[in-house]
């Protein structure tokens, strides 16, 4: 998805929150009263803030859903103008010009290796590849 659409969705939400017809007063529901001075958005909007660890629960590729047995942890890093989404345990990495693009690329790589290790016979593998075959075999429900 284009990043502009994501930003636009946040702007639309903000506009909806701000808009209130004349003669109406906002009720307190959109604010939390305990320690009002503490605003989670301040935490998120800090200049260096980044949520570089996220999780995948389902991978949807070509109209097929792959439900994970355990959530797949994804680390996202930004380097030299590119995003890298990786999972060390699965020895897989995706790249892209946005976080979402990198994660989508990672999803495709995970399915690719899942199918690859499922098909390949055990006697053709050794070392790390044997471990990966066992990990990928238990990846999805």
């Amino acid at each position, binding site marked *: 998805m284009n990043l502009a659409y994501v930003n636009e969705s*946040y702007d639309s939400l903000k506009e909806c929150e701000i808009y209130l017809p004349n003669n109406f007063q906002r009720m307190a529901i959109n604010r939390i009263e305990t320690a009002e001075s503490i605003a989670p958005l301040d*935490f*998120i909007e800090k200049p260096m803030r980044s*949520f570089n660890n996220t*999780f995948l629960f*389902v991978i*949807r590729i070509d109209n097929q859903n792959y439900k994970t047995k355990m959530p797949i942890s994804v680390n996202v890093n930004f380097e030299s103008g590119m995003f890298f989404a990786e999972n060390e345990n699965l020895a897989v990495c995706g790249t892209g010009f946005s976080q979402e693009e990198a994660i989508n690329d990672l999803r495709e790589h995970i399915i690719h290796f899942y199918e690859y290790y499922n098909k390949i016979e055990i006697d053709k593998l050794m070392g790390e590849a044997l471990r990966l075959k066992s990990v990928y075999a238990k990846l999805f429900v």
Partner: protein
Amino acid sequence: MHEIYPKPPLIETIFEIKFSGEPSIDCQKDKFFNKIRKDYPKLMVPRAKEGVAIALEPYLFEKEDASYSIGLSLNKLFLSCKKYQGFQVFKKEVLRVFAIFDDTFKVISVLNRTGLRYINIIPFAREKGLIPLTSFLNINIALPKSIPPVFKNIGISFVSQKDGGNITTRIEPAIAPDKSEAIILDFDYAKEGQLFFQSIEQYIEESHKHTKHFFEELVTEDFKKIMRGEVI
């Protein structure tokens, strides 16, 4: 006995009491500070904001490592924790700090409000441009058939009544400067009316019981796996 998760999404926990404004608190913050400054040496004063009475904005006293802070103004006192090690540890510090407050000012016996707030931040990756809300939270929004119940963006706040208190829940996605995204899950269990300082322990216990129960039911089994560290 509730399960204690090793990797909760919690970023801050706050317990606050509110009472009728008492000017002597405003005038004697130094006495309180002297009693806590060994543990809470950092002092932060509120900034003036347009339309907000500065006397109602809390002074903050913070630990050197910023793990805990105390907020104090003439009508409220709160303890905030950024490194939560379980409810019992948090409660112990609340009771210790609030006892120092009581010992210092000796003027507050009746409270207007108590609130226990848990702020959680849940990072997420979009799936085909949509927020995978139901992977993390057990929320089903019934919509007409023509509107798919999956969202590009969503903000929900609601207040529910729960055994002598109100629980306010706010669920709101947010975007960081580097465009990574997270869901803010903010709970606030409040008791209002005529409350008593001497019963604070009972109020915080009760607030925790309801908030924990609510949280346990709201988060999905998949997300509990993350909190337990059961991930690949």
